[in-house]
Every structure is written in structure tokens, then in C-alpha cells.
């Protein structure tokens, strides 16, 4: 059972997260004190640290810097939303992932699992276990386990919602997925009247992926129905490990 250390001064959030994460299979320890948190993180008893950027005595970045100088323990940063700088600085200083606050706890669980898998892969480099579930369409590769998306070999940075959208659309390559289904999968809720958020997510995903190699749109709109990922060669050419896909 992976053991997680949460360093966040919002003790109520820590309690709620403990309650949420334990049934998901994580052992959780929390602290609101950065000094104590650092000492615990270096104890070697945890497999992952969730670190808030806004800590009272010492900023999360400082904690991150000191931890990184002594340990390779995976760290997920909780950043303030809209502070792009925080995200970039965090990643540059060696954070493994970031999540803007407030977040959907399902998203947190998915990220934690992905980090564990990535670290596991790194540690058991020569392990013979089968590769993670992987979707490959055209020049896109999506690894659901490690939550990596690559276009022509280079990584594409997607938000949680965009990743979930792409995963769903790729699974259904060449078929229309209704907006309602996408909303339930991605936002975890039904669409309200006049709710445009799913369209905005699809739009920004489409912008990040750019056009297909032959210049056509990767994602198409079907009026009044939903969206579809259109494969370039008109078919679902490869689907590696399709049988092993687990909804996340």
C-alpha cells in the first residue's frame, strides 16, 4: 500500500483527503508544519509527497528545494490556480507533477497512481511486466497509466480534463461521443443548460494537438450530437494493449 505524506496547513482539507484517499488504497499521513513535513519526508517511510505551495513558515518551493537536495522522493505540488509561474517554477525545481487548487479528488487519485507507476517503471527498469495501457492513433500516443501524451515522440502537456477527453475520444476513434457522455467522463457531472465548459475543453485540446499531419482537423464537431476523433487514414489503425484499458 503506497504511503503518502501530505504537507498542507489546511488541516481540514488534510482530514478530508485522508478520508478520501484511504479507501482508494493509500496510507496517508498529514502535517501542516513545513519543518516537520521535511523531516518526515526524509524519513524514507513514504512513497510520495503532496506539497502545498502556500505554507505559512516556509514556502512550498523552499521545502521542495531542500527535499530535492537530499532525496528523490516523488513530489506532487498543489499550486494556486492561475499562477502559471508557480507551475513552471515547481516543475523546474524537480516536482514530479502539479495540481492546481481547488482540484477534483478523482483527478488527484489519477495523478498519484500515474506518478507511482512512473516511479515504479523507473525503479524496475528491466522488469518484464507488460507495458501500460497505451492508445496510439496516427502520430499520437497516450499512456493512461503514466498519463503521458506524446505527439510524434514529443510530450504534450495536457490538463486533467484535456487528458480525460483525449483518452475517451481516442478509445472511440472514428465514432461520435456525445457531449453528455464526455461531460460525465471528464467533469464527473451532467451538463447544465448553456454549459459550454466541455466545448471549451475540447477546443483547447484541439489547439494543443494542432492539425493532423495531412492538415485536417483531428477532432470534429457533429452538430447537436458531440465530438469525434477522426483518424487520418480513416480507421483505427493501431490500438496497443486495447484489451487492458481500465477506466480511470
Amino acid at each position, binding site marked *: 500500500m503506497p504511503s503518502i505524506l501530505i504537507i498542507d496547513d*489546511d488541516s*481540514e*482539507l488534510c482530514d*478530508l*483527503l485522508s*478520508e*478520501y484517499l484511504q*479507501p482508494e488504497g493509500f496510507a496517508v499521513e498529514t502535517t501542516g508544519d513545513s519543518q516537520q513535513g521535511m523531516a518526515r519526508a526524509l524519513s524514507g517511510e513514504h512513497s510520495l509527497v503532496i506539497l502545498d505551495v*502556500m505554507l505559512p513558515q516556509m514556502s512550498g518551493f523552499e521545502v521542495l528545494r531542500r527535499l530535492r537536495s537530499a532525496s528523490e522522493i516523488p513530489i506532487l505540488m498543489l499550486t*494556486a*490556480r*492561475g499562477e502559471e509561474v508557480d507551475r513552471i517554477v515547481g516543475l523546474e525545481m524537480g516536482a514530479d507533477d502539479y495540481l492546481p*487548487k*481547488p*482540484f*477534483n*479528488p*478523482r483527478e488527484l487519485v489519477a495523478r498519484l497512481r500515474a506518478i507511482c507507476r512512473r516511479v515504479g517503471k523507473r525503479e524496475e527498469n528491466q522488469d518484464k511486466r507488460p507495458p501500460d495501457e497505451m492508445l496510439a492513433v496516427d502520430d499520437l500516443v497516450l499512456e493512461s497509466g503514466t498519463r503521458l501524451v506524446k505527439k510524434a515522440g514529443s510530450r504534450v502537456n495536457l490538463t486533467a480534463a484535456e487528458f480525460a477527453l483525449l483518452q475517451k475520444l481516442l478509445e472511440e476513434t472514428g465514432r461520435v461521443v456525445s*457531449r453528455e457522455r464526455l461531460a460525465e467522463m471528464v*467533469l*464527473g*457531472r*451532467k451538463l*447544465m*443548460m*448553456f*454549459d*459550454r*465548459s466541455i*466545448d*471549451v475543453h*475540447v*477546443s*483547447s485540446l*484541439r*489547439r494543443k494537438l494542432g492539425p493532423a499531419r495531412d492538415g485536417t482537423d483531428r477532432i470534429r*464537431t*457533429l*452538430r*447537436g*450530437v*458531440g*465530438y469525434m476523433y477522426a483518424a487520418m487514414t480513416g480507421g483505427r489503425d493501431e490500438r496497443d494493449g486495447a484489451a487492458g484499458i481500465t477506466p480511470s
Partner: protein
Amino acid sequence: MRMFWKLFLSFWLTILLGGAMSFVAISTFGQHFHLGLPFDMARRADEHLTKLTVLYGRAALQLFQNGSQAEYDAFVLGLSKDAGIDISLAGPDNRSIAGEPLPAELANLVERARHAPQALVEKTNTGLRIAGRLADRNGDTAPLAICQLAFGPPPGGRPPGGREPPLLARLLPPFFGPGEIVRTAMMLIVVSVVCYLLAGSLATPIRRLQQTARRIAGGDYSARVGAGLGRPGNELAELGRDFDIMVERTEAVIDSQKRLLRDISHELRSPLARLHVALELAKRRFDAEEDGALARIGTEADHLNELIDHLLILSRMEAKAGSESIDPVDLTGLLREVARDGDFEAAWSGRGVEIIASTAATVMGSRDLLRRAVENVIRNGARYTAPDTRVEISLTVWDGQVLIAVRDYGPGVPEADLPHIFEPFYRVAKARERQTGGTGLGLAIALQAIKAHGGTISAQNALPKTGLLVTISLPTFS
């Protein structure tokens, strides 16, 4: 730099003008001195001199007639040495008393003096010549005494006897005379150096104030004038000190505002973060994944979150606290991107976004802010335009201004509401904005972003079909 040269020139001209005026004043005063006071003295000196000439002449004549030649010579030489008076005696026929002919310039004077009622005084280049009869009888035979006095140094050397130049000439060396070009040039150089230093001592502190003010205007609130504008008590130094105090306070206010924004962001989002986790816990506990009420809570939490985002963006822009980068932005490309995204997002519901006219246009500014501005206006249009219509965008450049027009085919806005639609949270009609999913801040953000770029944004109802026309105007960068 321009101010430095202005100061320099005005000092320079002032000094030259002052110099010229005092020159005029002094020379006028000097003339009065010469004409007034010593006029009487000169006349009386002339009288004394003529009497003296006659007395000296009689003494010399006496010695000549009764005494020896040696005594006469000693007397004449003594007068010349001690008093600077060259005396000679004239006999009849314009000859000296010894029978030698008189020099031509003396002969003329002697001739006139013979018939004059009294002694004659004649001014020469170097002094005076006085001729007077020695006997009180008229006629050509009476002997005459002629005295020659030299005053100033004659050209080419001092007069015999090493006499001093007159007082006025010693105190004020003549300006206009030989070497006047050199003297003028030297004076101009001295004046220029003095003016340069003076202008510099005024312009340098002001320039430093200006540079500091520019850095602050550019967003660098750590800039200070610092000490060194002058000694304490100097007005410019005091101004610099007050300026620094002002910047200090401004920086403190901006800092506290930034801190407040971060605090708001943190304090409002913390409960939201807890709400999200609690909501998921509730769904799991009551096995209520499909529950509409819980989904609603989630939607409203998302909406709140979006609202906080927009509020933060807006207040950050209003405080101009963001250190946005300033680059040339290709507005044509930016607009094409935003329109394509907007078209894609609207396509699902049968609406669309289309660029109907475009031209190459570049503006200086922050790409991110400009994108937010046009995106908010276009999304607003896409939200209200009727199904099966398209939001139309045109980009034109006219008279140094980029004009972006965004027209939708929606219901438009009542005229009374038009001036207010760029105000935060202004709701047209009855909560229409909320129904259609906006935060009520989109157009307010667009207004701030456009204002930050020195542009304007306005709205009007379009004709002939109903709809709203939003026009953005920005200065071009060329």
C-alpha cells in the same frame, strides 16, 4: 538632454546680455565723468599752464639775455627732466631766439599766438602745446615762449622722462584695441564653461528624477532617486527625497494589494478545495454518482472557482500589478486563432464564428492580455448569436488604428444598458448572463485589457438585423 541645452543657452545669453549692458553703462558713465567733473579742472589747468609757460619763458629769456649760455641750458634741461616740460623761445621771423628756424608744427602755432589776445593752448596726440607772448606789446618782434607737455605714452614707447599713463587708462585697459578677437574668444570660452557647469548642476538632478520616474512608470517600483541630488536643504535634493518617500509608499500599497489578492485567492479557494473533496466523499458514501443535486453543487463550485479566477485577473489588471511582457503581437494571427477556436466551440450548437475581412496588423503589448480581450468579446457574441447564425469579425487598419469589429445576430442590448455592459457584473435584462453561463466579468476584463494597451472598446446595436456590434480600437505598431 533638451532641457540641459535650454538651460545652457539661456544662461549663456543672459550673461552675454548682462555683459553688453554693463559695457554700455560703464562707457556712458565714463563719458559723463570725462565731460563733467574734470571739465572745470582742465580749463583751470590750462590757465595755470599758460601762466606758467609765460613765467618759465620770462625766466629763460632773462637767463639768455643776461646770464651765460650754460645757465640757460641747465634751466631748459632741468625743466624738461623734472617737470616734463620742453620749453623753447621764439624770436622774430619764426626763428628760435638763437636764430635757428622753428619746426613747421611750432611755426604755425607761433604765428597765430603773435596776434592772439592771450596765450594759445593746442592739444596734440600726446599732450599740450602752449604758446604765449613774453612782453605785453603787440607786433612781430616780441619774443614768445613755447611749452610742450607730453601726457600719454606715444605709440611705440614711453615718452621721455618715463611718465605714467593717466589714471582711467590704467584702471580699465582698453577692450577694443589690438588683440580684441583673442580677448572676445577668451571671454566667450569662460562664459561657456561657467554656463555649462551651471546648467549641468541643474539639469543632472532633474534628469535623474526623470529616469527614476520612467523606471517606476515601467513597473520597477524598486527604483529610487537616492541621495546625491545635492546637499540637504537644496530644493532639488528635497524634491528627490520626497519623491523617494512617495515611491516607497506606493510600493507598499501595491505590495499589500498583491498580497491581498493572493490572500483572497487562497482564502476563497481553500473552502472550495474542501468542498470538492467533501462532495466526492458524499457521492461515494451515499452511492449517489447520478444525483442531480450533488452534480449541481459541483457545477456551482466550478462556477465559483471561475468567478474567482476572473476576479483575480480583473483586479490584477486594474492594479496594473502584472509584469506582462511587451512585444509586437501579430493581431491578424491571434484573431484567426481565437476565431477558429470560437467557431469550433460554437459549432456544436449550430452557431459559428467567421472572419469576414482581415488585413495585416501588429500592435505592441501582451499577447496574453490581448487574447483574453478578443476571446471574451467573441465568446460573448457566440453565446448570444441566434442558432444558425455566425458571429462576424472584421479587422481593418485606418489612420494608425487597428479596428476590430465583432458583430453577432443575437437580440442586441437595450440602448439604456449599452453604456454599462463593460461594467463588472452588469446584468442586461433579467439575469440573462447567468442563464447563459457567464461570470459577468468577461467584457470588463476585455475593457481593462484594451485600456492597458491604450485602446478603446465600445458597443452599439447593429442594423438592419438585430445584434450587438462591439468595436475595439488599438494603436498600430509599425
